[in-house]
């Protein structure tokens, strides 16, 4: 009854949607601020922080190594065949290094961690919500945002830039594999170009992106899990599945969108 009335009245519908979006954004901002504040609130949750650092950072290494090496190798190939048309295959090192350090490193690292750790966070916290475990924390007077979100946020802010650095280094090595070993560019020239073209601003820019992506990914994924019970569609297990899906989709889209915004500021 109510929904059909809304369908007939588009103005009311737009109004309702807008209120929903504003409310959701407000809740998300408060969630982020509470989580960030509680990282520094004494006593520190050192053990949980280390556990999360291991889960988000250490356990993502294999996936990062694999994606980075293949990305670097593909860049080496594509770059070579494009540059050779202009007779400038010598600058392959520049192309691979700048593409990775400025753009692909932070973005792909963030997307890979979203798939591996972000979805797990959303699902774990979502299940805790629907099985009243978060309520149980609250009844014990344990701040659930501090307990669940803060250690993950801190661990992500540390591990995203480190994994990005790893991605960059392995990607450059991947470019060397395809460009130099397979296609015959002089390795000395390749690494010389890498060294001379990359300046500190490029690396800083990449790191800033990594930190921002860390905050975006962890906040969205934990938020989706934490508020599973407020979803209007899907309850229980279905709710958790929707929460996990939206966590990954929203994070990925936001990574690319914030990347554009950040790039335009950093350039």
């Amino acid at each position, binding site marked *: 009854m109510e929904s059909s009335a809304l369908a007939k009245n588009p103005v009311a519908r737009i109004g309702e949607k807008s209120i929903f979006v504003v409310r959701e954004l407000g809740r998300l901002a408060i969630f982020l601020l509470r989580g960030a504040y509680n990282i520094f609130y004494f006593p520190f949750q050192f053990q949980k922080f280390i556990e999360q650092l291991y889960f988000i950072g250490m356990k993502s290494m294999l996936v990062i190594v694999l994606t980075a090496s293949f990305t670097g190798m593909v860049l080496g190939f594509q770059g070579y065949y494009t540059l050779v048309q202009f007779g400038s295959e010598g600058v392959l090192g520049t192309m691979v290094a700048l593409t990775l350090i400025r753009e692909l490193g932070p973005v792909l690292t963030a997307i890979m961690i979203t798939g591996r750790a972000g979805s797990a966070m959303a699902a774990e916290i979502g299940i805790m919500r629907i099985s009243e475990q978060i309520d*149980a924390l609250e*009844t014990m007077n344990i701040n659930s945002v501090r307990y669940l979100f803060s250690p993950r946020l801190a661990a992500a802010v540390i591990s995203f830039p480190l994994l990005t650095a790893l991605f960059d280094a392995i990607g450059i090595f991947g470019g060397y594999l395809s460009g130099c070993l397979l296609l015959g560019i002089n390795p000395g020239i390749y690494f010389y170009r890498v060294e001379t073209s990359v300046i500190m601003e490029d690396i800083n820019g990449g790191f800033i992106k990594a930190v921002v992506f860390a905050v975006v990914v962890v906040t969205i994924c934990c938020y989706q899990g934490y508020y599973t019970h407020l979803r209007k569609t899907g309850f229980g297990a279905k709710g958790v599945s929707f929460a996990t899906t939206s966590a990954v989709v929203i994070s990925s889209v936001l990574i690319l969108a914030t990347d554009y915004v950040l790039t335009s500021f950093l350039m």
Partner: protein
Amino acid sequence: MAEPLIQFKDVHKSFGDNHVLKGINLEIFRGEITSIIGKSGDGKSVLLKHIIGLIEQDKGLILFEGEPISKMKKAERSRLKEKFAYMFQETALFDSLTVFENIGLPLREKTSLPKKKIKEKVRDKMNQLDLEEIDHVYPSQLSGGMKKRVALARALVTDPEIILFDEPTTGLDPVRKNAVHSMISDYQKRFGFTGVVVSHEIPDIFYISQRVAMLNEGRIIFQGTAEEIKGSTNPTVQQFIQGLESRHDALTGLIPQTQGERRFREEMARMQHHLSAFSIIILTVENLYEINKMAGYEAEQAALKNFADKVRSHLRVTDICSRLGLNKIMLLLPRTNQDEAETLCKDLADKMKSDGLVNIQAFPGFCFSVSAGIAEAEQEKPIEQLVAAAESSKNVFYEFKVC
């Protein structure tokens, strides 16, 4: 009357169009167990969640020691919360933590106790609740009854002043159900916490609670002692109690207390019309706690069940045997005066003694210590007085051990 510890004043709560609580007025007193009964879906759990602040009311006041909780400052509320513990209907154990970590979590997070001390406290609670040797087991590997006990241990580990139980026995078999009730009542007596229990278990819940409140269609339609609710003339209350009450006590197979009282009134009427005397014998198992200490709550309940079975098998056909409390059985003997009742009790004691009966296998030498009190009914003497008379006489009469 003393000031209530927690008081609801015209509390309303709606979820969307669903008006769940429609003006709750309820009083909970310090050091007592208050049970909240009512149909499923009438908002009992919602009511309980209001007390600890998991849900906030739309309208009305909830007072703690006379002070409205909603007007307290954040720090004050936080201090208040520390006094509470909550046992969830579905246990809400942390499924990625082991049993040991689950029970220790509130201590680890909220106190600065050293690790060794926490370990000691957790181990202590686990021993008290028969939870040995499952430290490293995860909740999903436990049976329903075990999970409830772990949840109870987690609720008790901080030694809270007030414990809220949301259907602590749902889904358990009669022995385990009674074991949980017995644990709650036992702990309450020992540590004197204030308990609020949401339950369907009628009449079992009456044995352990000092006060009962009934929730119906969003309002409290009755609150008073367990005795008072049985005497309530409100048709909804009566219908609910009688509807839920089975013809036999689930654990002992005896008829439940309320029906025992009904039979008592019938006998009383018969006495007034036909002048036929009748007597009662109250059997009290005095050392139930010792069994529990040696072999655990479930063994205690199983032993009680065996004992009740044996008593029943030795009675005359006309005798009525009903449960009176956690460890009490009332025998109603029609057309029997005091002297005959004494002879009968002596016979019963002899038969029970010679019967190689309640064998608690792990402790072969252990004996049930049962005391019996006898009283003959008199005109116009209500059941409470007669029971009291029988109980006060129990030292004069028989004390027999059943091994």
